[in-house]
């Protein structure tokens, strides 16, 4: 089963693992990645109050579905689920979930990392930070491009 969802609401990692594994006995490894809104502090000392995630409806689903298809051509996956939230998040909230299932652990790990690396650089989402004394768009990171680039 391969699923992509873009949603405002919370997700439940356990329910998504269960949905992928239910009734199957050919899965040897399930890897999950959960990305959370982190309570970081800017160099100037301004504490994060919230992140608002804006997205490009339609393209977000299509682009992530293309990444999942690409992962399936590279690794023998028995299933994958990607959920990305939009809207306003406070520190501690879930933002993104990637679940990959395979008969072997290396495929599950590599596919999850691949999906996260490319999600960061290709999925049309933008984070607006609200800090105690400021608000500003999060700049894309060179390290994300580098991480994605290693998949060649």
């Amino acid at each position: 089963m391969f699923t992509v969802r873009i949603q405002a609401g919370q997700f439940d990692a356990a329910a998504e693992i269960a949905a992928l594994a239910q009734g199957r006995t050919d899965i040897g490894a399930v890897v999950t990645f959960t990305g959370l809104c982190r309570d970081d502090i800017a160099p100037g000392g301004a504490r994060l109050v919230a992140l608002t995630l804006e997205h490009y409806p339609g393209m977000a689903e299509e682009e992530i579905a293309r990444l999942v298809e690409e992962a399936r051509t590279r690794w023998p996956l028995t299933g994958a689920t990607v959920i990305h939230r939009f809207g306003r998040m406070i520190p501690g909230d879930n933002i993104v979930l990637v679940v990959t299932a395979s008969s072997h652990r290396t495929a599950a790990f590599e596919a999850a990392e691949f999906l996260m690396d490319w999600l960061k650089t290709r999925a049309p989402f933008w984070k607006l930070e609200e800090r105690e004394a400021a608000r500003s768009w999060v700049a894309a990171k060179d390290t994300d491009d580098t991480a994605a680039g290693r998949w060649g």
Partner: protein
Amino acid sequence: MKILYFAWVRERIGLEAEEVDPPASVRTVADLAAFLKERGEGYAHAFENPSVVRAALDRTHARPDTPLGAAREVAFFPPMTGG
């Protein structure tokens, strides 16, 4: 042609979307960005550094030299920060 703007590109231009009918000389994504940049102060600000503005044609990532072809929906936005 429908043009969509996201994140700080949207904020600077002050619009989420608009219909635009560029002249025939506008052939690529970079041509369209240069054309839009002339439409006013907000546009000039949004496209002041075209190399940091990304684009999609009909919901697929495009490069500055990608021909617009028959695209019906073009989007401009900053580098993505999802995940």
